[in-house]
């Protein structure tokens, strides 16, 4: 659907993006994760024509495109990081305005506005000024505003930032439905739970450079492993070395806990307990999360 090649952006000599290459397929939900200041919002701004890249190009259906071109603009929608709407207009008025500015016919606009308000569950509040909405309602409206012209690809810049779990979950549902409708979704986030839950594919952006790319499972597999957390009655470092060597595992001490990790850990759990004998006081098994993988990855990058 859309790809970027060798995309770079300098701000007064500081590289915000450096040779970024990405591809988003039709109907795919693609997530860009990275720490604050990694360049995620800069990339979205380039893709939506708010700023121009220093180098590189954007390809739509494998053809170079300028984000300022009308054909491109009509194919993409945007949900900015902060809710963006006219607070003193109602939801209906906000949506209607955008529809008309996109050149839609009045009748189509009315139809689409009703459809979207129902889709995001705001039918009951359509004639209330948006500034009186809750943050979750505002973000749902913001999402619907990005979709008013039926774009094939929608850019979501940290869409659930600052939302409570209920509102976040509600928005994830809507994102999942977008994917079901066959739309491509490009989402930036530093919420790893969200990335794992919503995205088909991910890329990790660090200091303007894409460091890893693949499915959430692939990222987790590459960067982390399941762990078992053990509390022991005494220092048995010798035993731990012996067990680890024998089973191809690693261990490290974190305060009064011992963290053992490695492949196929569930199958080796009983053997570990037997090996440590009566010194085991407590045991907790933890499946690796994308956040674990990401943090570990960031530690490695820092080192």
């Amino acid at each position: 659907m859309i790809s970027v090649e060798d995309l770079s952006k300098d701000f007064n000599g500081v590289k915000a993006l450096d040779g970024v290459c990405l591809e988003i397929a039709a109907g795919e939900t693609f997530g860009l994760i990275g720490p604050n200041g990694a360049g995620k919002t800069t990339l979205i701004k380039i893709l939506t024509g708010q700023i121009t890249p220093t180098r590189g190009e954007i390809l739509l259906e494998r053809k170079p495109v300028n984000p300022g071109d009308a054909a491109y603009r009509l194919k993409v929608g945007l949900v900015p990081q902060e809710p963006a709407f006219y607070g003193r207009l109602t939801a209906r008025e906000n949506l209607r305005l955008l529809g008309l500015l996109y050149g839609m016919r009045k009748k189509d606009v009315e139809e689409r506005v009703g459809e979207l308000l129902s889709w995001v569950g705001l039918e009951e509040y359509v004639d209330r000024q948006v500034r009186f909405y809750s943050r979750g309602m505002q973000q749902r409206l913001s999402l619907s505003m990005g979709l008013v012209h039926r774009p094939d690809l929608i850019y979501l810049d940290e869409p659930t930032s600052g939302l409570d779990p209920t509102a976040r979950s509600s928005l994830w549902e809507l994102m999942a439905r977008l994917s079901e409708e066959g739309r491509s979704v490009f989402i930036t986030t530093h919420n790893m739970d969200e990335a794992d839950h919503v995205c088909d594919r991910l890329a990790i952006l660090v200091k303007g450079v894409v460091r890893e790319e693949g499915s959430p499972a692939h990222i987790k597999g590459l960067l982390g492993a399941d762990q078992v957390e053990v509390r022991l009655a005494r220092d048995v470092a010798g035993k731990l070395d012996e067990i680890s060597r024998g089973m191809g595992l690693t261990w490290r001490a974190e305060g009064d806990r011992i963290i053992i990790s490695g492949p196929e850990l569930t199958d080796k759990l009983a053997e570990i307990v037997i090996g440590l004998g009566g010194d085991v006081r407590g045991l907790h098994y933890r499946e690796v999360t994308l956040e674990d993988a990401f943090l570990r990855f960031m530690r490695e990058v820092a080192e």
Partner: protein
Amino acid sequence: MRGWTALISKDWKLVLRNRLLLVVLIVYPFLIMGVIGAAFYDVGRPVPIGLVNLDRAEVGDVIWMGGEAEKTSRITGRFSMRADEAVEFEGEEQALSALDEGEVDALLVVVEEEEEGETTRWTGAVTSEGMGEVMIDDLEYLVETVCDYANAGEALESLRQGENNVLMALRMEEYPYLGETIWLEGEHYDASSLVKRYGEDVTEIEEYAMESQARGDLKEGRIDAIIVLPRAFIHKLKTLEEIAGVRVILDQSNLVKSEFAETSIRGFLSRVNEEITESKMEAVVAGLYVLVGGGDFFGTEIVGLDQVRDDLIEIKEALEGRPELEETVDIGIDLADTVIEDIEDAAAYLEATALPIDLSISSVVGRRLSAKDAVVPSLIALSILWTGILCGAILMVVEEEERMRSRLRLTEMGPFALVGSKLVLATAVVFLQSAVMLFMAIAVFGAFASNAPLALLVIAAASASSIGIGLVIAAFARQVAGAVILSVLVAFPLIFMTGAVFPLSQMPTFMQWIARAIPLTYAIEALTGVMLRGEPLSGVAWQIGALVAFGVALLALGSALVRRRGA
């Protein structure tokens, strides 16, 4: 106490580390003080005054005077009566030609009201020597106020404008007492040099040959007032036979400027009054006292009334026993007492009165303007500035505050439409608001506005530049509150720098240059010109052109800055 110190220290740091707060609370008051100080620091500089001196022997071959008469037939009758030979002319060309060629010595032009309308009568007169003075006396007797004119053109123009209905022209040699000088403190002064001598501290006098030239410069703001010295000005001062009527023409479209000018003129002319009166009165009073006490009475040695009375008393004593003669002498003594008393009263009265100069104040507008009239154009201009800046800034910053700019950029509407739509709305708001204010001022408060449609054109031209300033401000604000504060910070000093509050002519030269770089200055000039002086389009074309140029430049700059910040 430690907590108090911590809180105060925290607030001080917040102020120091917030650029806007730092400017508003700490820097801005100094800036405003600087602006107002710069505008006022040169106050007291000489007021530029135009002087038209008609008391000059060399002004033309023919002198013109005129006025408003109730019964023009009486003037025509007397004029004809004084003439050795009276000639009726058919029209202006024939009459002026006869005067120029010397076929007649005097000319009378009278506008008569008749049933079928106004008729202008042109009567020439061949006169004997000395008759000119009599004709002037007749005119002064029958006309309310006699005005002197520098030439035929200005005199006839005043007739066409309806300022008077009688004009009289006399050959120069028929007019007495022109161009005399007065001897004061060891020097001779003619009318111009006398006025300049007394006015040099407070005015900067530029002399004009023609009143019309001076009026042109007054309208364009090069001078703040015009003084027209009448013919025989010095003669009247010397003789005190009659009051010398000095005309003062002010530009009342700027109240403060005209007040300054009037005060300055009244001030220095009162010094002329006082000193001339003082020197003349001293002589007269001394003469009166000589009448009482005896001595040199203007070159003749006389015996004073005191001595006469004393002599009469002695005579009365010598006539004791002859009551009929004593009674006659008593009458003489009483008469002497009464005259002595009256002379002393007269001397005391003369010492305190009789100012030889009288001012008649008029406006270059052609009518006296009230404060209400004069303030309306400035108020409308300030309203355009205020609403224009705020509207331009707020409408643009709303997009920023609502974070809609990035969304709108993706729609089919280009940046031109997004900025242009705001300009259309802002212009409509500013224009309608100012138009309503203008019509309310006229209809409800009865303010004077001679050319309201042209004023609307000026309002439209001024709106663009004010909105342009708002757009420039919008480029530096991210929230509506910030835009409002910045707008106020910008608009407030402009009010002091544009002549709306304080006359430009009284500001230092560098402040006048700064004022020329502010569109509001041109808006005020154009609105006062159009509304108060009845200027036609050609009279304010320069100001409208400047407003349009400022508007285009500021709108382009503002749009570019807003777009640049959005990029």
